[in-house]
């Protein structure tokens, strides 16, 4: 368990450039998340939200800077230690990522694999205590009666709730969610978001969740992190934020100073064009009025 005065996640000057990519996916990201905080990541697609989340549990390794999750420097961990850390961090995916051919219960049980040695095939190969726990979590998300159904027979919202139960099997201290409701209908979306909030409160979880609905983010999170082109452009509590301020995150994306300069040049050029065109038009108008003026007396 983490100390209450050490942050749950501390990121310092994180940079990530994918091999073969021209511009970095993340650049100079520094932030820290306190235990129990509910943070929402906002930004256009491609702004680095998923990449940032994936650094927290070591699915990605940074090209620069460091990520310290639950007191451990993620990039330094290998093998069993890395798996142990991942076991303490739950992850919810946009596409749920359940194994469709397995039963709902077995999917939930896979969340507990980090505590077991060796592979498991079939529900009965998991210890009884884990099975009871899994059913308890399924009951918590309201899907106990679906335990023995194939996971791919459930609706999207139900599958996401199963994924939440799977994450709960890890007894996580941090919950990461990558666009958890982006593929759900509005009704299931609000159900799932409410469920995550409730569970976070029950277990005093630290939550980092990327979203793309600004209104939802404002009402749901405690703090908003705005990403644009791999950089943090906004980091404030939701209390003193207006919708308009948040919308600025989605302003035209410019990542580097040269790009900004280019954009400014483009803007100046456009202004120049408008000016010359207006000058032409006013000149023409003057000529016309002159003509009229000359003709009228005749």
């Amino acid at each position, binding site marked *: 368990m983490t100390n209450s005065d050490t942050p749950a996640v501390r990121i310092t000057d994180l940079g990530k450039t994918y091999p073969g990519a021209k511009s970095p996916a993340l650049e100079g990201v520094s932030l820290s998340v306190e235990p129990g905080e509910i943070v929402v990541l906002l930004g256009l697609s491609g702004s680095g939200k998923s990449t940032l989340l994936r650094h927290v549990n070591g699915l990605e390794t940074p090209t620069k800077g460091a990520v310290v999750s639950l007191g451990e420097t993620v990039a330094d961990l290998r093998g069993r230690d890395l798996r142990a850390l991942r076991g303490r961090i739950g992850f919810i995916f946009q596409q749920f990522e359940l194994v469709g051919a397995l039963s709902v219960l077995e999917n939930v049980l*896979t969340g507990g694999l980090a505590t077991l040695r060796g592979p498991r*095939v079939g529900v009965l190969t998991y210890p009884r205590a884990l099975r009871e726990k899994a059913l308890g979590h399924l009951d918590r998300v309201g899907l*106990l009666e679906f335990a023995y159904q194939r996971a791919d027979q459930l609706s999207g919202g139900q599958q996401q709730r199963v994924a939440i139960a799977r994450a709960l099997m890890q007894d996580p201290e941090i919950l990461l969610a990558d666009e958890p409701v982006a593929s759900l209908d509005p009704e299931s979306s609000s159900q799932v978001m409410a469920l995550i909030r409730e569970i976070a409160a029950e277990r005093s979880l630290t939550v980092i969740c990327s979203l793309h609905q600004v209104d939802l983010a404002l009402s749901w999170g405690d703090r908003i992190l705005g990403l644009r082109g791999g950089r943090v452009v906004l980091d404030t509590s939701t209390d003193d934020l207006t919708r308009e301020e948040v919308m600025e995150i989605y302003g035209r994306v410019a990542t580097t100073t040269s790009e900004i300069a280019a954009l400014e040049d483009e803007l100046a050029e456009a202004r120049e064009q408008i000016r010359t065109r207006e000058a032409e038009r006013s000149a023409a108008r003057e000529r016309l009025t002159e003509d009229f003026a000359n003709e009228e007396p005749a």
Partner: protein
Amino acid sequence: MTTLAERPVLGGRLASVPRPAPRLSTIVSYGVIIAILALGVWSFIGLDYSLKSLDTTGKNISRFLTMATPMQWPGWEVAGERQADGTTAYVTTWVGFEPIWQMFLTIVITLALVIAGTALAAVLSVPVAYGAARNTTPHAAVLALCRGIGVVARAVPDIVFVVVFAILWFNSGTLPAIVAIGLHSVGMISKMFADAIEQIDEGPRLAIRSAGGSKAQEFWSGIVPQVLPAWIAVALHRADINLRGTVILGVVGVVGIGYELDGALHGGPAGMRRVIPLVVIIIVLCVLFEIVSSLLRTRLLGVQPTGKGIGDTVSRAVSRKQAAGTGSVSTGSARTLDRHARIEAAMHRPWDRSRIGNTVWIWLGILVVVGAFVYAAPDVTKMFAPTWSELVDPARDRAVWPPHFGSRSWADVMGAVITTIQIAFAATLMGAIISAVVGPLSARNVAPNSWVRNTFRGIALVIRAIPDLVVAILFIIAAGIGPQAGALALGIGGVGLLAKLIGDSMEEVPNGPERALVAGGSTRTQVFFSSTMPMSVPAMVSHLMYLLEQNIRSATLLGIVGAGGIGFLLLNALQGRHFDEVLAYVLVIIGMVVLVESASILIRRALK
């Protein structure tokens, strides 16, 4: 008024229309077609399909038929009595059920060997496929190694493994046959297993990784459930192929129906009368087995409704509705129970219809596989006491290494290789020409009416159902030993496969251009030559290469039963226990197969 610029006359402009260089896939497609045509014609000439040889073939067939009739089916005895006028009168008498029972046991042991061998191959293929799939392999070197294992296992005929193991583990019963089928099948099975792994959805695997799962847990919980239906389907398909292959294994003494056939062929006049019934039994067995295996395959792949078709959509909708229905009902009753009791009640999975069904199928499968091993009863203990001296003993002039061709010169061996290749090319050309008629006419968008389509589909289906290797053996027996008969049989056998593939790929052609041509008043023939055919050319070339690969392999095997070529040299070396020669021929065969497979991969890549 503006005046249009003077336009150059049409002729001049036509000359300056840019002609872009043809695309690579076009060049490759037509190149392959021309090459197969040319090599096919060269092979026909090389194999001496003259009128004279056709005449000999005709005589051979009629002689065979006089010898093979009247047929002696199990349960009957045919006895010839010489009459006073020099002719022979045949009397057929019923001898009871004993021979029928014996035949039944022969079929059972054949099936047991096939199932045990295929099951062994499936198990061995799992680690090989794990290493050979790009998304699971631990290292590039492991990838190359595992793919290499696959290529070699595919290239070495199972008959070689049988003979080597039969000597290595002397007197071990069916062990050599099971292991031989197992090792050879790893070639195809591991490749298709790896393909299935490469096609999985990576998401669930990633989810298990982020929950802290190990590599092994990722594999068993994230990958295996996704690929299992495909894997079982592959194994069933391979079992089908292996059943046909056991006919050839009979030549080197593997028990089963192939051995019976070999015995009948060498059993004098009384044996010859059993040949046709045996071949008929083999064909019926193969057809029945294929029907069962394809029914199982559709059932297996049908369990998972993931497609976009109307059937899948409906079944998904139905199951979701059922789920929702049961859900609401039990929530109502569950509310009354307390949380603990609810969970306790859910600890035991109810025996609903799907659970009973699944359990029955799983246990039936296990029972069949275990039963196959038990019935075949291989003496596994011999595996741990191999008699290496039989394979490697310098004192008795017996060595595997160094490989050499014995008394044969390189020219002889190359001549044999060329014969095998000629059989394959002649068969491919023959199959291609017949399929060029049968295939399109079995396509919905080409056939003038449904009657024609169904007739040609039926023809392809019937040819496909008959095992071509078995037919080839019958041909070789009937028409006399020689490559002509082998090529003929393979050529006709290939129609079943190629015609179906061509028909399918023509139906898959986008139908927009066809409609446009019809709207412009084109006839059906014009539509076919202007739209359907040019658009399906790349697919057809790819199928043609596949058939060629198959035919090279089959031509090698046919050599063993008398079609000549490299297979015949291999059989001679095997029978003489000259393992250095066996190794040399096996290396030649591997080289041949690797060459054809790489050419095929390159061509298919160029077609994309």
